[in-house]
């Protein structure tokens, strides 16, 4: 597992999806959920309902409602909104 060393609280729904270059932490928030994803190389698609994140060796699609994105340092992004599904894809982007 690589990426962020951020630690979340005990009440956090911590979901770590282990993939070669992704690290994801998801926790509840007032707006639904917040997903912090590191190792992002680019954004393939950005709408209110889905965001496609690209990495060196794959892709990740975050599906939900009223999604928003903040770009943080060290190739990390934060996606907030009512996240309902996280899909992983493999292969070179």
């Amino acid at each position, binding site marked *: 597992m690589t990426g962020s060393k951020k630690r979340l609280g005990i009440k956090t729904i911590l979901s770590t999806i282990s993939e070669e270059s992704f690290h994801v932490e998801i926790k509840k928030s007032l707006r639904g959920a917040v997903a912090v994803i590191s190792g*992002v190389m*680019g*954004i393939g698609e950005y709408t209110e309902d889905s965001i496609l994140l690209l990495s060196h060796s794959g892709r990740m699609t975050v599906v939900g409602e009223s999604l*928003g994105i*903040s*770009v943080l*340092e060290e190739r990390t992004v934060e996606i907030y909104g009512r996240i309902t599904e996280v899909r992983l894809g493999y292969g070179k982007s």
Partner: protein
Amino acid sequence: MASLNELVFGYRKGKVEPKDMPKLTSIFLKLGITSSITPDGLFTIPEKDSGRFTAYAGGRIRFTLSEPLGVPGFFIRGRKRYGLIFALILICVIYFLSSGLVWDVRVSGNETLSDQSIIDSLEQVGLGVGTSWRETDNSAIENELLMARNDIAWVSVVRRGTVAYVRIIETENVTYEQVPVPSYSNVIADRDGVIEEITVKSGVAAVKVGDVVREGDVLISGVVETERGVIFCRAEGCVRAKAVADVSVLATREIKINEPSDTSLAYVRAVLFKFSINIFKNYRNHENNCDIIEEIRNFTLFGGYKLPFKLEKGYYIEYSEATYTRTEEEMTKAARMELETRINTEFRDADILKLRTTGEFCNDGYRITSRVVYATEIGKESVIEVN
């Protein structure tokens, strides 16, 4: 919404076409710029990164950027408002200068010395209103004030904000009275009595135990007869005798009392923690024949928790003199209390051997009399005049 960091160091708002949003996000990731992008294409960017972003994204996507916002934007927009800039600089300068000066000197602990005399002395040693705190050494001022004033025994200068709190302790003026010691003297009786005990340190005992003496009788003589003739000395010793005294007290039927005649509101204060605000204050002079009654109203929550807020009300209660007629029981009680006080005061150095008390009502009130039999020291020194 801009973060605190962006507000302080400046930021810009931008808008991008929805189709370019993935590219915009990728550019932010590539350049390492922290930003927030909403689904409708609005984003914010720190002012420090705006130049780098514009240079890189200029030919790649279509976007618009606002003027600088936040604190730097405020100054950039107001850079031609010279009055505002001058006022801000002036406020900063005044604040900086005034916070370094002594604004008030408060003196406490003085009883006989006036505040003004101490403030004058402090000014002479370098501490006064307007003095710079940077040039003030509290320890040096304390030492110099102690050197300058003999009537101050201890002083402490403490700075709190812009106020100098000076606490002093005055020197006690103790004068020792020189009591002349006579060369030749007798010990004589200062009241009538029956001698119970006599101890002679120097001189000759003129009485013995059981003798009845009158006031002025010689108890220990300073005239000593020897084989070589008469010599004089200072008679010293202790003579205890049993004596009798009458103590009488009259409790009058009518007495003067102070009766409350008028009540008026003196002040109303609102107190929050230790800060108080005068809402109303009556400046009339009510110091004579007047009491101040203070009423404090605290506020509590339903659970009994006391709030740090209270309302203080003060009332002047003025008194006028009136005549009060006491009952027999009140007169008796008052007379007994006064008699007891007088006996305890007058015979505090004596051993009371017997006490007989009688009382009677008379036209003026109630008179109570005690015959006190007591034992005490009755000798006093009387100088011998030798020609």
